[in-house]
């Protein structure tokens, strides 16, 4: 579960040096007085979140802890949805809808994990930083679960490895699962300390996974152009565009990618320095709205397929 324990500051994958995008090291940075002004280490929201509140039974708990639990809890839903099928070993439910339930769940968790850094850039608050790790772990669990279940229960021909590699989209998915394993194994403070500077480089693999997801979705649904067979949307659906996974991915990724670009981050820092935060929000607003728009359809897909999987009446729509 999301933890409120703070990592040592020097081990934080920096929110300003844009995890893996910006490659300038300390030596190459400009003189101190010309660097973009960093936000104060702790914003007012961070301080407010650090205060204790009375919780059930009068015990005191940090606001941050409560907020993190609330924000992190939905992440377990994809795994929860598949739990009845797992407990009853219902092969049919796994065969029909595990890819939609756990696969879409992994996509959602990836986006939520990637959302943390842009939100730190925008708000200056860091209290929700542990969610990045939490959603990253859940993304790995969903992805690996999807891979294992697909290898065992898919209706494709052949054995475990054949099922995972005989189609382009399954092969790409399999590669993503392989890449996510080292991230899951090293996604803890101990590994972070042991790996030192290499930890961040290793975890830049998440961007490779992000890119591979585009290829996975492209090959899954006819490169975004096909409907029905090899594409999105079923008979009677009528909304192949909104249900096209590649479009959902692209619309959600635009916000996540833009806020990671060093020139954009410099622009935001400069506007903040000028005290024109409204301009930042006015500019980012439409991009964020597009992100929310895409996420609504991804979440809708997850809930629809997930609830059907939970009832063990899986939907292949």
């Amino acid at each position, binding site marked *: 579960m999301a933890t409120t324990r703070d990592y040592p500051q020097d081990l934080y994958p920096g929110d300003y040096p844009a995890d893996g995008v910006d490659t*300038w090291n300390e030596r190459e940075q400009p003189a101190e007085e010309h660097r973009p002004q960093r936000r104060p280490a702790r914003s007012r929201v961070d301080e407010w979140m650090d205060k204790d509140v009375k919780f059930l039974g009068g015990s005191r708990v940090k606001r941050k802890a409560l907020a993190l639990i609330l924000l992190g809890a939905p992440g377990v839903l994809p795994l929860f949805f598949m739990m009845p099928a797992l407990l009853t070993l219902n092969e049919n439910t796994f065969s029909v809808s595990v890819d939609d339930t756990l696969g879409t769940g992994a996509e959602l968790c990836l986006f939520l994990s990637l959302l943390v850094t842009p939100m730190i850039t925008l708000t200056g608050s860091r209290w929700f930083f542990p969610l990045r790790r939490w959603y990253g772990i859940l993304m790995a669990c969903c992805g690996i679960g999807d891979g294992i279940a697909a290898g065992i229960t898919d209706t494709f021909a052949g054995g475990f490895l054949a099922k995972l590699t005989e189609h382009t989209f399954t092969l790409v998915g399999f590669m993503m699962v392989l890449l996510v394993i080292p991230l899951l194994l090293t996604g803890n403070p101990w590994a972070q300390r042991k790996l030192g500077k290499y930890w961040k480089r290793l975890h830049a693999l998440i961007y490779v996974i992000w890119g591979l997801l585009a290829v996975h979705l492209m090959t899954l649904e006819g490169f975004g152009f096909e409907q029905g067979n090899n594409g999105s949307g079923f008979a009677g659906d009528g909304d192949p565009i909104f249900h096209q996974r590649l479009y959902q991915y692209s619309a959600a990724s*635009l916000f996540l990618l833009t806020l990671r670009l060093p020139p*954009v981050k410099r622009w935001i820092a400069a506007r903040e320095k000028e005290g024109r935060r409204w301009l930042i929000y006015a500019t980012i607003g439409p991009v964020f709205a597009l992100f929310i728009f895409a996420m609504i359809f991804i979440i809708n897909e997850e809930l629809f397929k997930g609830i059907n999987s939970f009832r063990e009446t899986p*939907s292949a729509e």
Partner: protein
Amino acid sequence: MVDRSYESDFWESAVRGRRPESRRPYARDDQEPSTTAGGVILTFVALLSTVLVIAGLIYATGMSARHKAAAAASFCEPALFITGLPCINQFMETRQYEGIVNPAIQQLISESAAYTANEHHNLAAAEAALNAEVSTEHALGTSLSALMYTPQSKAASVGLITNAASFGNPVPMAAVIFTPQITVIADALVRDLQALAQLTGEQARSSSLSQLRSFNARIRAATIAVQGEMQLVHKAVETPPTASQEPCAPCI
């Protein structure tokens, strides 16, 4: 004197793999960080997003109408979909089941009548009627088994539905299969039918009319079991749709 600082920067970058000092953004003391590129990128992305969001919202307003049009085009009524089987509604399920069971029942009734007419005086004719019954019972069991819900039958059904929708054709009846719930009851029916067919087969191998008639009580009991299962399946598939939900006649 010629300023060679840029050159030295260049060589330093070549040797050490670093970007020349003078080319780094906001590297000089008298230079403010350049934010033009960021502004341009963000403006472009914001405009693109605005257009896409507005287009998406406009497109979303037609969602309901598109669903109805798509349903009509593929002769489907989403409100009646049985969970997990797109475009297969209760009405189609009933028609498919009745299409298989009703002729078989008619056949069994006439074969049973032929047996009853001959059981006291014509062994060969009675046995022929019983053998015909066995064939009908086997055929009915096989037809019902083909409707069972399995991952394979579901995949085949989904393929047929998708193909039909892609080409704007009605959903074929071959795509209709039982739901998982009905499959459980139908499975029991098929087992009872097999038991009845086996018993009828034994009866048909009787060497005398008295031996033939000695099976009658057991056959009656087995038939009652089959009829009971049939009623259960019939009840499960036959949930009549309301008048407003009955546009699906053309899809059959």
